[in-house]
């Protein structure tokens, strides 16, 4: 039993039980690996391959095809701003630029403190609530920079609390 299997035994067992074929579990398991390591790391890939009875090449292939798996480490908060046409018509491009400027990061870059990665993404099915972004796969909608600054502050506090709490 590998590390992922030990740590996430129930979730993995439940996931595998959904499908007649283990291979179908590769996507849910990659999410688990990403959760564990913060990105889809080589050890994550190898363990998922073992659980799904696949060659590691095939798992890496899946991880590379889908944009929600990150094959590189990301910031604690992975901010993905939708700048697709419907959002862009409602000012998302500007919002995206302002956010990057505020956090002092380049497109796809991570803040120096490792807190935030900012990148743009394609339509997230929230076009009527633009500008919006997803942060670690949770949506934040109807944003402007004022709201954003509050959120960023809250996220920073959260991390600080966790750090303090664990002391």
């Amino acid at each position, binding site marked *: 039993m590998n590390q992922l299997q030990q740590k996430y035994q129930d979730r993995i067992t439940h996931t595998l039980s959904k499908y007649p074929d283990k291979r179908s579990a590769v996507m849910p398991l*990659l999410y688990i690996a990403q959760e564990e390591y913060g990105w889809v790391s080589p050890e994550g890939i190898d363990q998922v391959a073992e659980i799904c009875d696949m060659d590691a090449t095939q798992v890496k292939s899946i991880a590379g095809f889908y944009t929600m798996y990150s094959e590189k480490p990301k910031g604690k908060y992975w901010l993905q701003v939708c700048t697709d*046409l419907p959002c*862009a018509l*409602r*000012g998302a491009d500007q919002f995206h630029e302002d956010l990057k400027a505020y956090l002092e990061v380049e497109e796809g870059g991570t803040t120096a403190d490792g807190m935030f990665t900012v990148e743009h*993404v394609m339509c997230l099915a929230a076009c009527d*609530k633009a500008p919006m972004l997803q*942060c670690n796969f*949770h949506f934040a909608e109807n944003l402007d920079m004022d709201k954003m600054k509050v959120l960023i502050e809250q996220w920073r506090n959260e991390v600080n609390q966790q750090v303090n709490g664990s002391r």
Partner: protein
Amino acid sequence: MKHILFREHEVENIRELDVYVNNAGYAGLKKALGMTPDEVINTVKASGLRGRGGAGFPTGVKWSFIPKNEPVKYVAVNADESEPGTFKDRQIMENNPHQLIEGALICAYAIQAKAVYIYLRGEFWDLATQLDQCIEEARKAGYLGQNILGSTYSCEVYTHLGAGAYICGEESALLNSLEGKLGQPRVRPPFPAQKGGGLYGEPTVVNNVETLANVPFILYEGPEAFRAFGTEKSPGTKVFCVSGNVVKPGNYELPLGITFRELIYDHAGGIPDGRGIKGILPSGASGPIVPATDEVLDTPLTYEDMDKIGTVLGSASVIVLDDSIDIAWAASKMAKFFKHESCGKCTPCREGTYWIDKVLDRIITGDGAPSDVDLILNVAKNMQGVTLCALGDFAANPIIATIKHFPDEFKRYVDPALKQEKKAVAAPKRAGGAAQGRAGRGTEKTGLVPAGD
């Protein structure tokens, strides 16, 4: 108007199982279980319901393709909802989830499927958790699982999350993705309904969320009640997702056959700042753009009428572009989308989307030659009709239709007489201020959730 899908307008908290059940919830399923599978299929056929995922294929007919003698069959619910400008399935699942589950189960019963997989785009992460809870509740109440409502019929319902790939909305790519393979489309035939073509090679019905959410109503109220809405060829209501430059963007469930004008002005509040409309994308990025002429504005939104004005109803994701919008810029946005989403499996789409984006970028940064416009038009035409799946056609549309209807918007960038200086296009500033009126009660996400939750 009474809503078929967005019943939260009439019934508060319809998302909760007991509220749903108290308001005729799962009555359609109960009724279906008392009928033969064929009778269920015929009822759906009689309603004239057409697929809401884009192609508008008659739903009952699709179900009837499933071979009876195969022991294992599946239903895959297409909740990938990734077309730019589409956000309707999300609202249905957020506010009226049991109606989708019930519809999917009726479909499953009609084709005698063993299991239903709801394939959600990966970004519907939180939604999937909620749906899982609903499924659990429904199971406990006997609406799914073993011996549904005391009948001999059993069926499981599962959710499955994608991970960020528009192409997985294409049905055969969706099936590949569910099987843990690359989300690339398959060669057809065999079609999903045929042995060898569906999930795990078994005959499978793939239906959109909105399509299936209509089904409980059809069963419970009867096909005629459904046909009371819409037109002869396009019966029922449709959720119109209105986005872009309108005062009240949002989802509007309305009978098929209302006009663009009614939709945009009567329902979506018109255009901010009293501006005019330049163009309308009736079906997200993938359907051809139409200029906002009076003829277009007065065209009824039906499958048949959209055909007449050279576009498609598709998933009815109406993106409105006001008269300040640079069409070449909009085309470039769409080109970038398709380039990003091309799965890469077939040559014309993989290479075509790449080159269109590249050359279009050159055009809108002022470096293009007049021949560049012909070049992208020609590349787009060369992609049409020859790709493995419809994404290639979708990707060609924004180029072909924008150049056809708005040639001057491209000419400005490349005609030496017209282009004064290199100027990068400015993206629109915020349109009409912060979140405007809500049409549905789409729950707004605040983003106040801790990381890794």
